[in-house]
């Protein structure tokens, strides 16, 4: 049981295939719900998008869900890209190099995006 939780809370990033598979599905399902929410939510912003976006992000629930969606997107896509490396990069060294590079880039994208959104939120509050 402890082993199961250890694998599960690796969020799919250890070498266990089942954990990877489950997290890919969990993130996909949650993203679908959040994408449906954001598509309908954004439809009301279309006239002056940037100004409306700044007002929209001011509502805390929008900010939290937007950040959650972005983290889910990066989590899901990083797992997907690692899967492609697994399937098509044979050399262990090259695969390890690209995996670390990919995770670093993904982390930077998450960091820059959340920092930017937080800045927009705190600037207009």
């Amino acid at each position: 049981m402890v082993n199961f939780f250890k694998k599960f809370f690796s969020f799919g990033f250890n070498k266990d295939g089942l954990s990877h598979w489950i997290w890919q599905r969990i993130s996909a399902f949650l993203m679908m719900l959040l994408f449906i929410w954001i598509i309908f939510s954004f439809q009301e912003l279309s006239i002056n998008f940037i100004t409306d976006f700044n007002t929209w992000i001011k509502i805390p629930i929008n900010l939290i869900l937007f950040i959650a969606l972005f983290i889910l997107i990066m989590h899901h896509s990083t797992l997907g890209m690692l899967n492609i490396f697994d399937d098509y990069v044979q050399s262990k060294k090259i695969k390890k190099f690209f995996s670390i590079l990919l995770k670093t880039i993904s982390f930077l994208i998450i960091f820059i995006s959340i920092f930017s959104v937080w800045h927009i939120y705190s600037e207009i509050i």
Partner: protein
Amino acid sequence: MKNNDRPLSPHLQIYKPQITSILSISHRFTGIILYLSTFLISLWLFSIAFNNNLKIILDNFFYSNLGKILLFFITFSFTYHFLNGLRHLIWDFGYGFNIKNVYLTGFIIIILTLTINIYIWFF
């Protein structure tokens, strides 16, 4: 000679082109496009928060023909990946596995992707 490298998945050119293989390959390909497009979203958020000049450059780019083509590929990839992902989730629950349904749902996804993108870009 000792070789510790694990075997690879079959390379793409080995598959006979058919709806099942094309849709599977497209799912991965659109996934790569969507991963790359997160760079743009991040850059766009950064420009709104910190750099107005960058925002103007990005706005001009997205209003140009090249920008519109890029956005078209992103919306197309998103729609396709979303719908085909839903199909994958349904498979994971054990439904729709027989060959007739696999072809039918594949065909529905192609039609829906095209319809949604025509609606987004032309209406």
